[in-house]
């Protein structure tokens, strides 16, 4: 019998393999993000000063929206084919196993954002001093986005069209991340210290990643009956 870690790894590998075979599912949110970021200069005007001023906010809001897009398939397929129910029946703790799915979601949606961030910074004329801060905030903040998002996805598993409901319940919970991340990037752009905001971001992520699985497991079990 597998122990918890082996199960964890096999769930992670399975999710990544599925994503590798259906690349568009993972790519679409990223393309969406890129397009949203493109829309802002078109809507506001291409003035480099104003773009640099609002760049952190735009990129982070776009990241929040892109996270919501990918949530739909986080548990849904496993729920429909019954494998999620099997995970519930195993003796290994469900909350821990589900973190593997959150990790897979982060590798497919959060990490690409970090990698993409220099391009986004370039598009929005973010100064060089600020783009590394942007990458760091995304690196520290996106795990919390994935974990909170998984709660929303688990809560709406039974619903046919849960998409708009998920955004309704999740966006208020994302607000602290948005505030600290954008203020870190702004401070970095002005050459001020950013350790404070980054530390808080990291703290929120650690707290969310440790506590959210409990809510996730409760929500998944609730969806099973």
């Amino acid at each position, binding site marked *: 019998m597998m122990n918890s870690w082996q199960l964890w790894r096999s769930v992670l590998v399975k999710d990544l393999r599925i994503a590798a075979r259906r690349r568009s599912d993972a790519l679409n949110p990223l393309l969406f993000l890129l397009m949203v970021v493109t829309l802002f200069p078109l809507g506001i005007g291409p003035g480099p000063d104003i773009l640099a001023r609002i760049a952190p906010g735009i990129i982070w809001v776009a990241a929040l929206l892109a996270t919501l897009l990918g949530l739909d398939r986080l548990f849904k397929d496993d729920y429909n084919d019954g494998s999620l129910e099997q995970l519930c029946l195993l003796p290994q703790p469900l909350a821990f196993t589900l973190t593997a799915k959150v990790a897979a979601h982060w590798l497919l949606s959060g990490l690409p954002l970090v990698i993409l961030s220099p391009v986004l910074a370039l598009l929005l004329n973010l100064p060089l001093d600020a783009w590394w801060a942007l990458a760091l905030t995304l690196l520290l903040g996106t795990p919390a986005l994935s974990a909170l998002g998984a709660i929303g996805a688990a809560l709406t598993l*039974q619903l046919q069209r849960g998409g708009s*409901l998920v955004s309704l*319940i999740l966006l208020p919970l994302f607000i602290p991340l948005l505030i600290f991340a954008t203020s870190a990037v702004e401070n970095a752009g002005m050459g001020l210290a950013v350790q404070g905001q980054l530390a808080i971001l990291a703290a929120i992520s650690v707290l969310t990643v440790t506590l959210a699985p409990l809510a996730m497991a409760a929500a998944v079990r609730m*969806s099973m009956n």
Partner: protein
Amino acid sequence: MWRWLHPYAKPEATYRLVDKLLPWFAALTAVSLLVGMVWGLAFAPSDYQQGDSYRIIYIHVPSAIFSMGAYFGMAVMGVIALVWQIKTAEWSIPAIAPVGAAMTAIALFTGAIWGKPMWGTWWVWDARLTSELILLFLYVGVMALYYAFDDQRTGAKAAAILAIVGVVNLPIIHYSVEWWNTLHQGATITKFERPSIATSMLWPLLISLLGFMLLTISLVMMRFKNELLRHELHRPWAQRVLGTAEESH
């Protein structure tokens, strides 16, 4: 120790208790609200700086406090519903949420009315205003989730989980917007310091607070009674209460 609570897991016993208590709460609400409002709005002295505009605190502060109090109560009910699987606690969530949302809306609305003469604008992106607005969103989320499910037990559990997640998040949201931007005046009454408000203004405020607390509880009780009846319509006791019982079986 908790044995006396056990009968109230049964909807009928809960209904009888709420039914018995509601008139008392309603009467006390009417008295304390009347005294608090008349004293505060008509007889308390005007403020030397804000004139008569400050009088809106007799509505604004109580509704803001109990918008948060109701959310906390809802989350406590959520814990009870999830841990002990008590049906009546599940049904109290849809009873509390709209009342709390209404309190939040009142706090936002009265704040806007006060902000116009004082700050010269209906709305500013100030920390407290923003966290109150986010609280309203959280209420809306809980209600939307509850009513999204066909099976109401599932809906209630989902709403309970979300309410608990929200309660963990509320302090984080509150302090994050606090550090982000603040214009709102500091709290006037706190537990640990002498209140920075004249006694002649404080008393009507405390009575209004009591009135709004009782109002929130009474409204929740009224909604809770309806929820109990709605879920138990097929039971004889509910039919007896509603007078729809068939005479002969």
